């Protein structure tokens, strides 16, 4: 029967799909984690975006002190 004759090709195709989709999901998740870690590391060293610093009030306070 055709199903048993070609089951290896079907299984290989689905395995390829699992590997491709799994690889994409892993890439996106690991990249997200790496970028978050890099941002957190920079913020820990006091390097923040101006808009975020303003939001947190730090820059605002600095500006007031300078004034």
């Amino acid at each position: 029967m055709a199903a048993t004759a070609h089951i290896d090709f079907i299984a290989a195709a689905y395995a390829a799909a699992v590997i491709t989709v799994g690889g994409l999901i892993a890439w996106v998740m690991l990249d997200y984690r790496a970028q978050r870690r890099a941002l957190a590391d920079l913020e820990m060293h006091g390097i923040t975006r101006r808009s975020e610093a303003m939001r947190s009030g730090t820059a605002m306070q600095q500006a007031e002190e300078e004034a």
Partner: protein
Amino acid sequence: MAVIDLANPSRFLTLANRTIPWLGGVTLIAFAFGINQAMIAPDDYQQGATVKIMFLHVPSAWLGMLGWGLMTVAALGTLVWRHPLADVTAKAAAPIGAAFTLLCLVTGSLWGRPEWGTYWVWDARLTSELILFLLYLGVIALWRTVEDPSRAARAVAILTLVGAIDLPVIKFSVEWWNTLHQGSSVFRLGGSTIYPTILIPLFLMAAAFTLLFVTLLLAAMRNEILRRRVRTLRLMQASATS
């Protein structure tokens, strides 16, 4: 939130953070349903059980082309409107589109061996699809070659617009040339030639794959925005210390 507000990367990040978990959940449900329907679908009278490979191959082919189509629109956004998210979209879509194009080639090859007796022929449809994959690799390489993202975006946009010529070639290759690959059987004048017992699982799998594509694209765009923030902050740090 108005659509124009999404031009702001911070607002886009807020929206992406909210929607990605939901989209992920819906994608999972769609795949559970689609795979179930694909597995219980009857064998094709000619292809036999190998028709099950089509439930992967056809959506992958569509999404590989959709990815480049999206990048083409994004290229126009970069060159004409200088939309802040246009090159972010183009960069995020490239590896995802490449992966789906590769999956299309691999699954097509695995279907071809039992049905055609060969893994590969230099047929117009197969060759134009391979060219699309090579174009994706070219775009990914170009993004990595030019360090400044805005300069890279312009170069990539031009390559993307040139590469878009391949999309109609892929679509109409089966009509323009005498190919081993079959002609259009889903979207064609006069209706689909596929019987509903196979067509419905095919559409369900296509919907699941499309949801996956959108989820991955949003997540990759979020990563790219964060990467650019990291780059800016590192430049600030370097200039502060020098």
